[in-house]
């Protein structure tokens, strides 16, 4: 009754639905973050380009672009899974998923891949618009993709945790405003943490967003604030921890099944 084929169809169906869900409102889910990213780019580069050179031979505008791409990728990966779950819970249509034979692993996989897809899609859009303004080198495309994938996966998992935990839209907004936004803004998107005082450098090292952005930027310039291996290790570790928590939550039916 529940053959492998039927499980593959079930997983693919949920993934397709999740992808369509954000694509149907692409103006809000893709165009809006791309425009925000481009506005950041134009304003900061207008004010600071030519005045600051963070890495040797890298203009400020070029430095800024990978950070903005990664910040948007992370925020949108989080938004995708969290908004899907909170909307379904508040509107009550989560029941359509809970009544099905889909396992917790199928749910996790589909929600996760859709989140990564939306994050990477928004990131690619910002990248292609940015290269109209400046030549952007990609030193190591594999590292770029690896950090994009891990960062998207980490934030997609975090979005599922938030979506399962939150019961109201204001609780979800609090997650975005008081956790995601400060952590992403203070992660070295707009500056190198070497420009900070030793105390704030240490604080920045406690921020997982810093490693995601720094490692991603390394893929473009071959230069970074900290070792890319350390970044890879920390990001992978965080991804595994969040994936474990998410899977445990979905398996136990926490806040989903009475």
């Amino acid at each position, binding site marked *: 009754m529940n*053959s492998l084929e039927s499980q593959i169809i*079930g997983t693919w169906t949920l993934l397709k639905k999740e992808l*369509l869900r954000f694509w149907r409102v692409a103006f809000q889910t893709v165009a809006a973050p791309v425009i925000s990213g481009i506005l950041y780019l134009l304003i900061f580069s207008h004010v600071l380009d030519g005045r600051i050179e963070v890495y040797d031979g890298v203009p400020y505008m070029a430095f800024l672009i990978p950070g903005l791409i990664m910040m948007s990728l992370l925020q949108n990966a989080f938004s995708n899974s969290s908004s899907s779950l909170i909307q379904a819970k508040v509107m009550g249509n989560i029941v359509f998923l*809970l009544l099905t034979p889909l396992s917790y692993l199928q749910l996790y996989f589909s929600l996760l891949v859709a989140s990564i897809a939306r994050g990477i899609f928004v990131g690619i859009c910002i990248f292609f618009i940015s290269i109209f303004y400046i030549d952007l080198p990609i030193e190591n495309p594999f590292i770029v993709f690896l950090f994009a994938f891990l960062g998207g996966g980490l934030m997609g998992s975090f979005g599922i945790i938030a979506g399962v935990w939150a019961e109201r839209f204001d609780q979800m907004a609090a997650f975005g405003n008081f956790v995601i936004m400060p952590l992403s803004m203070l992660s070295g998107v707009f500056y190198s943490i070497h420009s900070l005082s030793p105390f704030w450098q240490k604080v920045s090292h406690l921020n997982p967003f810093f490693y995601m952005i720094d490692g991603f930027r390394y893929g473009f310039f071959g230069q970074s604030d900290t070792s890319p291996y350390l970044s890879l290790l920390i990001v992978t570790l965080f991804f595994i921890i969040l994936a474990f928590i998410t899977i445990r939550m979905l398996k136990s039916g926490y806040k989903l*099944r*009475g």
Partner: protein
Amino acid sequence: MKKAIEFKSVKKNYKQLKAVDGISLTVEQGEFFGLLGPNGAGKSTMINMLAGLVRPSSGSINVMGFDVLKDYQNARHSVGIVPQELVFDPFFNVREMLRFQAGYFGKGKSNDEWIDEIIGRLDLTDKKSTNMRMLSGGMKRRALIAQALVHRPPVIVLDEPTAGVDVELRQRLWAFIKELNKEGHTIILTTHYLEEAETLCNRVGMMRSGKLVALDTTKNLLKKFAAKNLKLRLNLDKKNGSPLSLAGIQYSLSDDWFTFELKKISDVASIIDKLKQKNIEILDMETVDPDLENVFLKLTRKKV
């Protein structure tokens, strides 16, 4: 033959509240079973446990022989649930929603023919490309029923499916559900429309405070608990006390009609005799057949 549904000593506690208190219940394949009870009796908890939305505190539940917890995937393949609330996904149209729901159950494109058939049978053909948000309440209700059927489950559970539905649509829905039952589907129904349960269900379970207070065929319940009633309109000044009570006759009064419960048909003569003795004139008279509402009220009002 496997039982369609089997609850074995099922309990569900919410802290101090015993929502379901040790219920054992079996529904055979092909039955049209009604689960009745006042609000808060535990009907929805029973259905939510059957659907896997709520986990029982103790006991076990099987659907077509599959345990809803240990073998949840096969159990969920075997049951289609029509939820009470009019919930929907606002991003998609009717057909898309049905295809997604079928896909979750592992049904691919080969199932599209069945989806179109359900759409047709529920008169949703004109609305199949309409976004769920744009449908009327009745249409949404039909779409919910269609959603529960997309994976061809042998057991169909309808939780208050006609709540808020107009009379014409209600009749059409019942005709459709009767057809499904004739085709071999087991139907479990909760409803507040007792006359519908009486007309449709072969067997009825009545719940009160988490317990099953009656479980029998509809016919037997009517025989056991519902007496025929005698209704009289009397030339009686109600302001001057109640000579009927003095005469030792139990009755209820509604819209000038006095209703007397008949334990046996010969009670009619004795009531009329007593009224004659008190010089009370009978203006009008009728007898009323027993109905499930009487049984329901008797069983669910006790000790409340």
